[in-house]
């Protein structure tokens, strides 16, 4: 696969999966599966092996039990699921559809079927975090350097429960997930007041990062109105700073802790329709909103409140990654296959309804022979020149064409 910028035809050097291998073995009600990939990048000619999933699944008559490194899928809409926070995201593959953008976690899951109900429980013993690009000049949303995470999470264990049922011709799901943010946020600062004599080259404020504890309540549904399918998903996130358990040697006189208690929400509404000629059309409305936002700074050793200003705009550590693009966005998608599956056409447009900004993508896949496919894709971002902080503006230089050759065996 080769990606070139539309602005100057220069090559975009980012890692990509040059090979994926899915292996499975079934014995009666038991399945053993592994999904692995080899990642490669042109600029360094380096490749790395990645075991994406490896699990054992047991399918008794009453449900299913899985154990191992797993990618879980929750929610009703196609991608951008706010209720699905069980796996971290791999930001290098953010624009990939489906499970390709997620990272497997070592976990145990069990699903039980009771008549019209499905009850699923997931246990994750170790907190895993998003893979965020650092120092990638070709990835506009990358952070310049990898921040040092000063405070690991207090409680590694994460738990999720989801119940799904059918009422009439509709399916409803409710879920709760108790875990930790997958993206770090500021947890403390080391502050050197101006009257302290330190060299000018030293920073006066040193932010230190950690992961907040977040609980997510989710609701999702799918229903049918004539030939239209309506899917919806909403989640309320309650995120709180972890109480730092600093030992005596860590407590410093210039250390200040940020305590945050924030409620935010995300929703996705999706309408879809398939034409008689099998063209799939869908529209997704994605929104996110910060509700209650309480924060306090206090001195770490004396526990006295201090009147520090709010440092930054609140950034969610969970939920759909597309929430960072816009407060309210509309995604229009269409796809279809022609010529007996030889030709596949896809088109997407993301429109920022909150501020200026659009993303347009289109791809043509052609399969001249069984198991071979050529793909030509185009992604174009348009931001706002007056808003340099907008993700759409930052991504303008990432507009690219993509040429790929795929072989399945």
């Amino acid at each position, binding site marked *: 696969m080769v990606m070139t910028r539309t602005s100057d035809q220069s090559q975009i050097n980012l890692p990509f999966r040059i090979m994926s291998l899915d292996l499975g073995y079934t014995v009666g009600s038991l399945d053993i599966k592994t999904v692995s990939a080899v990642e490669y990048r042109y600029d360094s000619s380096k490749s790395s092996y990645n075991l994406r999933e490896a699990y054992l699944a047991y399918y008794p008559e009453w449900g299913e039990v899985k154990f191992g490194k797993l990618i879980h899928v929750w929610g009703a809409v196609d991608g951008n699921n706010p209720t699905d926070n069980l796996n971290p995201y791999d930001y290098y593959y953010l624009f990939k559809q489906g499970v390709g953008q997620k990272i497997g976690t070592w976990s145990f899951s069990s699903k039980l079927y009771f008549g019209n109900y499905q009850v699923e429980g997931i246990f994750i013993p170790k907190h895993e975090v998003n893979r965020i690009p650092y120092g990638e000049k070709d990835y506009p949303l990358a952070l310049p350097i990898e921040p040092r995470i000063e405070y690991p999470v207090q409680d590694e264990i994460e738990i999720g429960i989801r119940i799904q049922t059918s009422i009439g011709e509709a399916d409803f799901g409710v879920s709760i997930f108790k875990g930790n943010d997958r993206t770090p946020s500021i947890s403390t600062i080391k502050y050197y007041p101006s009257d302290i004599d330190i060299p000018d080259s030293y920073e006066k404020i040193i932010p230190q990062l950690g992961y907040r504890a977040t609980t997510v309540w989710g609701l999702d549904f799918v229903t049918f109105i004539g030939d239209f399918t309506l899917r919806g998903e909403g989640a309320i996130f309650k995120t709180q700073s972890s109480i730092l358990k600093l030992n005596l040697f860590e407590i410093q006189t210039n250390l200040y802790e940020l305590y945050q208690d924030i409620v935010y929400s995300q929703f996705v509404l999706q309408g879809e329709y398939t034409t008689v000629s*099998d063209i799939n059309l869908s529209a997704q409305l994605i929104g996110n909103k910060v509700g209650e936002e309480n924060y306090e700074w206090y001195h770490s050793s004396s526990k006295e409140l201090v009147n520090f200003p709010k440092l930054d705009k609140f950034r969610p550590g969970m939920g759909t990654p597309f929430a960072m693009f816009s407060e309210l966005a509309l995604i229009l998608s269409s796809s279809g296959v022609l010529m007996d599956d030889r030709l596949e056409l896809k088109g997407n447009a993301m429109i920022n309804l909150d501020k200026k900004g659009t993303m347009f993508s289109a791809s043509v896949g052609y399969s001249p022979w*069984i198991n071979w496919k050529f793909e030509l894709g185009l992604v174009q971002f348009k931001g706002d020149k007056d808003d340099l902080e907008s993700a759409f503006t930052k991504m303008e230089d990432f507009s690219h064409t993509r040429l790929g050759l795929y072989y399945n065996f």
Partner: protein
Amino acid sequence: MIRYAQILFLLISSFLLAQPSARSVMEKMDQIQKPMDVQTHLKMTLISLKGGKERRRSRELISFEKRYEDGKFKSKSLLRFSQPKEVMGTGFLTWDRLGSKPDDQWLYLPALKKVKRIRTNEKGRSFMGTDFSYEDLSGRDLDADKYELLGVDIIHGTDCYKIRANPIEKGSQYSWRILWVDKKHSLMKRVEFFNKKEIMFKILDIPDHVKNGDYWTATKMIMKNLKNNHRTELTVLKVKYDQDLKDNVFTESFLKRN
């Protein structure tokens, strides 16, 4: 002259009296012994004509079907693609309900690792890009049509009754169908489909049937679309009957296993 007319009248009436009614032919076909469940390995070939040359594209799939004689369901079926690799694991689960309630359908997409509940109200829509529509594959109730015997004919070397089937209720994509039913074994050999403009636009040929134990199997079905000169061949590679398929085969869990 009058004597000749009388003989001709007797011959015609005895011929007509010897013919069974169209309804009884269809009833006989409907009463053919059917398995309670069937597992079929199928090859589906899409054939198009371009520049006088045939272009073929094949897929293989495994189908599980179970009939229910009581309860809420008429039948449940599960289809899973096994070839080519790029669609391997894609599956359809259908619960065909008794009465007027619409079918429950789910689609499993391995790339999304997700079971999606879907709705296919449009019965005339093509099934997976083939020349078969969902209506063609769902099978028709005996009482869904009114039948008229048109005569006899030979199709695929078999003596057949030629019957016109007119849908009783609205909702079918066809204005009528012409059916050829094997006289000896009561098996469907050909169907001609007429659209709402009363133009024949599809022909289904079922040249070969094989009897496996108590059951007949159509080993090949060819659906020809006359509008675009395209056809779909369904060939049975392997079939197993009455394996006592458990109900959990027709669940989301089983749909995801590939």
